[in-house]
């Protein structure tokens, strides 16, 4: 009987499914591919200030993650950034 009480409204299911499928659809179109590349470039720029990274192995993608609280699925940007070397931060003790 559990299904009877816990049943989500079908319109809510539709909304959740749409949100998810559109993330993929939008990411697949050229203008959004550009967006991913722009995010990639920006993040590489920031991280490179502190650590030396392997740019050829840099991965960025949209991913779906199952929520713990049965709230359905949510989307994340997943990145894999291999570090070559941590840069030696020179503390400017003076100023």
């Amino acid at each position: 009987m559990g299904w009877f009480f816990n049943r989500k409204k079908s319109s809510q299911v539709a909304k959740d499914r749409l949100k998810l499928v559109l993330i993929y659809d939008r990411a697949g179109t050229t203008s959004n591919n550009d967006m991913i590349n722009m995010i990639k470039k920006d993040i590489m720029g920031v991280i490179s200030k502190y650590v030396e990274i392997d740019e050829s192995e840099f991965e960025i993608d949209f991913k779906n993650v199952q929520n713990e609280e049965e709230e359905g699925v949510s989307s994340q940007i997943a990145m894999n950034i291999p570090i070559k070397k941590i840069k030696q931060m020179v503390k400017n003790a003076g100023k």
Partner: protein
Amino acid sequence: MENVIVITSGKGGVGKTTSTANLGTGLAMQGKKVVLVDTDIGLRNLDVVLGLENRIVYDLVDVVEGTCKLKQALIKDKRYEGLYLLPAAQTRNKMAVAPEQMKELISELEQEFDYVLIDCPAGIERGFKNAVAGAKSAIVVTVPEVSSVRDADRIIGLLSANGIDDVRLLINRLRPDLVRKGDMLAIDDTLEILGVDLIGVIPEDEMIFRSSNLGEPAVTDYSSLAGEAYRNVTKRIMGEDVPMLDLEQKTGFFGRIKRLFSK
């Protein structure tokens, strides 16, 4: 909205042609000079929805190929002053016309008419490209259903890629009873997902079947709820600030009784 508007959706069967016919007739009822352009070459239907199928001599392809003058292909609707149809060819295909030629044709029409409404075919190929070539604004038609909303999103992206950013959403065939039960996407949910502004909501209405049977757009029928919704959208196109229909109330018990007596 701008004076050249493409009515599009991506998915077929959601009401592009019906909406084009109704909004065009609605604009003519408001005293505007309007031309409706059917770009669905090979699968034309705007002519039958308007009840003008028996009057076609020349079509859009004839104009583009120079077989006739633009004025010769325009069909004047005798019932509504100021309403004209430029029919699509039925025996050719979408490749018979190029986007550049459409652009030229539309700009010619624009000089003669207050409004140019372009009925776009389903799909995202040549037919779509032709339909949007000369457009400045777009009305994206969707029904509150997953596949249609998904396609609408794709279309909104493609419109933007074609330089059309004045995009408004028309939600068609809404059933307030199903929304109430939680079995149909609500207006706000659809808007949230697509992230565009609403131009109107057309409720599911049996009168639409009657009106397409007769070839008389529902917008002229004062006992039809969809007709009333289309009249409101027409005014919004013209820049008037018309409040959204309270479908909850209109489709409730008392709303139905009232409608019964207005017939």
